[in-house]
């Protein structure tokens, strides 16, 4: 009897044993520690080969790209330098907004998460299954990694650390079907949960039909999952269509290229602290920007006798003698030559709060460029940017330069060669310097 059904009996026995093993694991609520030893064996068996191959591949690629295939590198280098210049200017302008936001958040006692430490890791393999989206990285417990740490790239979020071994870790990516990320839409602030699909796509769930969601909307992490800090880029809405019942079907293109990851950052430390307004809040983006521009070097106050028009006008008002700043705003905007004296006096009266840096620049600009009227010069570029934040100054600048103060900023037209860049205040979710780099 048993002989006839021997094969079937063994099949049932083997299946029963596996079902039993699964049941034990499920009963322990998915705690991977119960199977840790077995997993370590498997990982230790496979990953050394993966590491070796990745190392060899990278070595060959580096030799080729570093020593042989250098076509177009100079042009790219030049382009990148230009880009850096422009980004420095943009960063300086944006820093004021960041400071202001921090100030407001501190007033409201907001808590904010800051990424304070990351570990760079290299992707060495995947889980070996097309039904789960997970990758192996070459850093583990030895590098301070723990389960549930966020894994990101410069482009956006990637996933979270799922299982940690001594020298490797398994990362569950955000497009895995079992993962979920708390997100919100940047424009509408609409919150939702991002999930993976069987095809490895990302779907924003539980968005009602009557919500306004458009293709191209940026999706950011909301911080609600307690894994990813708020504000990290997640992706962009690629497609919006009718979904089941009363919900929309919102597809999202991941910001990070999840199918071609090579290096990632693991967020090993993040701090939650109240936003603190900088104690020296007098320094504004305008000041930082002015410092960086080469045409506005520091210069001591010029003697009254040597200063024509604008400054003299400012000095003629003793009550505002220490705050003639907005005169410079107008003049630096490039219209000083039109009616310098009137500009100086009227602006001082109207807007006394612009940065002190500008105060020093007044005589210089008037002396150096009395009739240029050119806002595209370096100095003009800087001041044009400043007018963005002191736009009201034009109201006071009644007769001097009615149009120039309101003229749009043109910071990027000039190509200044700034001094060493000043570190901008840290905005919340920017990844800091990495603790270690991939090899």
């Amino acid at each position, binding site marked *: 009897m048993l002989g006839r059904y021997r094969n079937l009996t063994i*099949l049932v026995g083997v299946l029963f044993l*596996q079902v039993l093993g699964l049941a034990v694991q*499920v009963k322990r609520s998915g705690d991977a520690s119960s199977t840790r030893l077995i997993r370590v064996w498997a990982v230790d068996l496979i990953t050394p080969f993966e590491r070796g191959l990745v190392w060899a591949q990278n070595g060959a690629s580096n030799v080729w790209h570093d020593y042989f295939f250098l076509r177009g590198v100079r042009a790219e280098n030049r382009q990148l330098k230009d880009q850096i210049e422009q980004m420095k200017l943009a960063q300086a302008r944006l820093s004021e907004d960041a400071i202001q936001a921090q100030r407001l958040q501190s007033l409201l006692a907001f808590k904010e998460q800051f990424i304070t430490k990351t570990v760079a890791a290299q992707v060495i393999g995947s*889980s*070996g299954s*097309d039904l789960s989206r997970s990758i192996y990285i070459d850093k583990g417990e030895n590098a301070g990694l723990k389960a549930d740490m966020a894994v990101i790239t410069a482009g956006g979020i990637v996933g979270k650390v799922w299982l940690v071994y001594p020298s490797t870790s398994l990362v*569950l990516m955000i497009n895995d*079907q*079992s993962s979920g990320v708390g997100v919100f839409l940047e424009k509408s602030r609409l919150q939702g949960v991002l999930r993976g699909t069987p*095809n490895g796509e990302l779907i924003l769930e539980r968005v009602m039909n009557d919500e306004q969601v458009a293709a191209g909307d940026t999706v950011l992490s909301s911080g609600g999952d307690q894994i990813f800090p708020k504000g990290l880029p997640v992706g962009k809405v690629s497609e919006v269509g009718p979904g089941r019942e009363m919900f929309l079907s919102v597809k999202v293109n991941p910001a990070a290229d999840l199918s071609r990851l090579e290096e990632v950052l693991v967020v090993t430390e993040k701090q939650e602290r109240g936003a603190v307004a900088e104690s020296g809040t007098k320094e504004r983006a305008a000041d930082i920007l002015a410092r960086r521009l080469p045409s506005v070097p520091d210069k001591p106050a010029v003697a009254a006798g040597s200063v024509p028009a604008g400054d003299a006008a400012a000095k003629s008002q003793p009550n505002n003698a220490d705050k003639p700043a907005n005169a410079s705003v107008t003049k630096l905007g490039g219209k000083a030559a039109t009616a310098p004296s009137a500009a100086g006096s009227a602006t001082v009266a109207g807007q006394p709060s612009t940065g002190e840096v500008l105060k020093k620049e007044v005589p210089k600009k008037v002396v150096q460029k009395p009739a240029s009227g050119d806002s595209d010069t370096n100095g003009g570029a800087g001041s044009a940017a400043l007018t963005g934040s002191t736009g009201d100054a034009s109201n006071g600048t009644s007769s001097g330069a009615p149009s120039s103060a309101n003229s749009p900023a043109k910071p990027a037209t000039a190509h200044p060669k700034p001094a060493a860049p000043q570190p901008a205040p840290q905005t919340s979710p920017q990844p800091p310097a990495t603790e270690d780099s991939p090899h």
Partner: protein
Amino acid sequence: MPITYTSEEQIEVYRFSIPVTVGVPLLALFLQAFLPRRVPYFSYLDLPLLVTIFFGMARRNPISGLLTGAAIGLAQDMMGPYPIGIYGIAKTVVGYLASSLGVKLDVENAGTRLLVTLGFYLIHAAVYFTVARGMVNLTLNWSWSRGILAGLANAVVGVVLYFVLDKFKQRT
């Protein structure tokens, strides 16, 4: 030529050397883990499944087939994020069916191999999803388009792979 007799049909039963028996599944597991990061479309393939089907059909021994399937499936589970046993159960069933089918069908023919592999891919997916959703309570969703596409891709690659692996067969 050694021949075994089953149900009045003459079929050939093959065996494999130990290096091939151990090395081929390990290589399949390694490639499955390594290549999808370099070639994204490779994730459609399930090399360990193809190896399970091949060994099952070549050996034509249900016990050997189910044990091979269980071993390969469990090893695949160990590399993944989910509880160990889901792939194990699915591949055990496939290994058993493949070896049972090998007894009854001529599985040397390319057309047969193509259809059999497609069928086994779908059976494997059905068992996997049943266990994953029914027992482990994973929120996995089945996509027919991806399933059929992946099944066809595996069937085509399987036919080629089987012809390569045929070279390692040793007649008993």
